């Protein structure tokens, strides 16, 4: 398989995953805000904190209001992480490897791209938002299912997995990072019920609420939730699960020694902590380190299997 194609599949997969994750966190935040008392509601800013695009956001918007944040996360093409930009990037990557991706999956992605643009205005309204985001999440689940059901499970599929699960590991760690900051003053015991709501919303951002209830059988609270989201071996959005899946794909690829080494370090790091015992400061530092590790692993993958970077790529040519 061509190195360039491997790279395109990897990025296609990352952008598709990013689209879905963004749609999920927006939906959940909207629900959370409705449940919290007005005075302590964190508003919409945490979503921008999760994506880490605060500087870009502040360059273009005056405040972190609902309308501004949603515009930025869903429809702003200046934000390379917005749903529209990610869909656009996914489609461009897919277009470059159209010969490789099953036609039906390409058609679905193309349709979703058209939907994202044409229904954007509706998606930015309070009334239309939910249906818009739901359609996006469902379409991506369909694309993922179709790829798993129709694409050759060869090296291309391994790169698809690498992209999806590295992106997911990164996003899960970011969501935990931002959402675990305590919303509540420590001594305000009368607000205890809301702390549960906060952790429920973290779980829901990752569609992990139901799974948590089944697997943990304890009340929703900080320690077990953190362990579940970081280390659970069977929850498909936990960082641990993502890293395990990445390893399965890495093991199948040739010339994988260096990548496996970086992966091993990352996994050991993840397993060496009891997240419930970390203070908020420590947790933040730990998650930071985790994200740097995911970045290192990406770097190693690119170095081993992707084509050497080009200086200039502005090329076009007509022909009859």
């Amino acid at each position, binding site marked *: *398989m*061509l*190195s*360039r*194609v*491997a790279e395109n599949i990897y990025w296609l997969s990352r952008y598709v995953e990013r689209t879905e994750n963004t749609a999920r966190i927006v939906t959940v935040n909207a629900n959370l805000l409705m449940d919290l008392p007005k005075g302590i509601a964190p508003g919409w800013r945490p979503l921008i904190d999760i994506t880490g695009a605060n500087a870009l956001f502040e360059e273009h918007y005056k405040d972190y209001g609902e309308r501004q944040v949603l515009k930025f996360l869903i429809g702003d093409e200046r934000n390379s992480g917005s749903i529209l930009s990610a869909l656009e990037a996914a489609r*461009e990557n897919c*277009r*470059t*490897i*159209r*010969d*490789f991706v099953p*036609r039906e999956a*390409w*058609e679905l992605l*193309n*349709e979703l791209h*058209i939907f994202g*643009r044409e229904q954007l205005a509706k998606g930015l309204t309070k009334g239309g938002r939910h249906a818009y985001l739901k359609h996006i999440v469902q379409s991506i689940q369909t694309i993922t299912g179709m790829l798993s059901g129709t694409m050759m499970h060869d*090296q291309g599929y391994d*790169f698809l997995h690498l992209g999806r699960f590295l992106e997911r590991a990164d996003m899960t760690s970011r969501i935990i990072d931002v959402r675990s900051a305590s919303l509540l003053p420590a001594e305000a015991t009368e607000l205890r019920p809301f702390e549960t709501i906060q952790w429920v919303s973290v779980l829901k951002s990752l569609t992990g609420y139901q799974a948590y209830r089944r697997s943990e059988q304890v009340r929703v609270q900080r320690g077990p939730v953190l362990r579940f989201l970081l280390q659970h071996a069977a929850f498909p959005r936990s960082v641990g699960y993502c890293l395990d899946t990445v390893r399965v794909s890495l093991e199948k*690829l*040739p*010339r994988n020694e260096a990548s496996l080494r970086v992966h091993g370090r990352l996994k050991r790091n993840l397993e060496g902590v009891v997240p419930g015992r970390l203070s908020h400061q420590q947790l933040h530092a730990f998650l930071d380190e985790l994200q740097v590790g995911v970045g290192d692993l990406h770097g190693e993958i690119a170095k081993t*299997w992707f*084509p050497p970077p*080009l200086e*200039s*790529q502005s*090329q*076009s*040519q*007509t*022909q*009859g």
Partner: protein
Amino acid sequence: MAIGNASGALFRWSGRDPGRQWACEQETMSIDWNDYPCDEFYDELVAAPGKGREAVEGLLADLEELGPDELVARQEAADVAIKEMGITFTVYSEEGGAIDRTWPFDIIPRIIPQAEWERVEAGLKQRVQALNLFIDDLYHDQRIIKDGVFPAEVLAKSVNFRPQCVGIDPPLGIWAHICGSDLVRDGDGTMYVLEDNLRVPSGVSYMLENRLVTKRVFPELFEHYAPLPVDDYASQLFDTLAALSPRPADYPEVVVLTPGIYNSAYFEHAYLAQQMGCELVEGRDLFVDDEDCVYMRTVDGAARVDVIYRRIDDLFLDPEAFLPESALGVPGLLRAWKAGNVALANAPGAGVADDKVVYSFVPEIIRYYLDAEPIIPNVPTYRCMDPDSLVYTLEHMEEMVVKPANESGGYGMLVGPASTKSEREKFAELIKKDPRNYIAQPALKLSTVPTIVGRKLEPRHVDLRPFILSSDRQQVTMGGLTRVALRKGSLVVNSSQGGGSKDTWILPEQSEANQS
């Protein structure tokens, strides 16, 4: 999505839009073939008011029975299908850069009886066989020039002659493995060859997709008619390419070389690679080693490449041999080809016969190499290099189509009957400055095919581009790509300039299903 800065090309394309606003059109109760205008031009489906051509007699009645509402609904279904299938081409504009557009398609098929097609097919094979002998001769002994049949000065001024290729023997002696020749039908029903595209002809993927879309939206027509299938093209192309491999003992590694997603025909490059099960590569995926062999960079390391179906123009192929600034090509590719370690299709330099002045010599070329009369005639052509023809052309510009020798895609030509006086004056200056670069042909009365416009069927002009494959044997596509000028009266069918396309049916005289 709104496209802000529309260019000339886009304005022309949008000529179709008024016709697509179905809801605003006035109600038409039914389709009446008696009202269909077919006296001025040869119509491919309608012989006389109310009367279909023999092969399609029943089709007119079928369309009539469907009625305008249903036809419009089917056309809309086709438009949606094309958009969702992502069948696109790229339009260039000066301000807007490259824009990915969906492929304009009209659902009424164009029909050619099988008996006529068989003659055309024989004519195309003859033509391409002669052209390949001609190219090979030009890069070797140049007998045709020594024998005084082809003038040396035409060759001397050819922009597509590649001195780098002199003396090279490509596999099987073939230079143009994939040729796309454009055919047109004049008012009296004669089919002519309008031009031969021997460099990187495109359009075949649209031919294949058009059939797929037609099957989706018109399934019942296929119950009554049995157009001959078109879809084995990809395997024929693969066999054509594989036969060129320098390592015939192994399973050859064939790749499609594309300039990338910004090329107007990128859709087709990807499509063909996918259908053939080959890698679609860009120049940066390939490299040539010290032993002049070509490799591609893969996840497993370097892998040897045997045959390259290149969709990049000659001059961009190899910065070592041609344009040094080309970033699309592969340094050393020509070396590898000369050494016989890789096959290139089409061979570099094949474009020397893809020149409208050379075109005018094709009948002589056929007689010279094959000692036979051309089966399909050329359009009568005036070479402006020839003083009498130059005078005639300048005096009759209003009735002529004047074309530069080496442009494709309908760029840089003058359509006399549709031109203004100042356009003609400007063009006359261009011709006088460089007569060798121009030819003129009488403006043909291009044939028409019924096309959906609003809620009616109106005649629109068409041409036909079949594709001819040559290596160990010759094969011609079943029909080809019918291109249609969607604007009323327009003769320009190029997709880059407001053309659309139709499915092309080669119909057996009596299809069995038809008799039931």
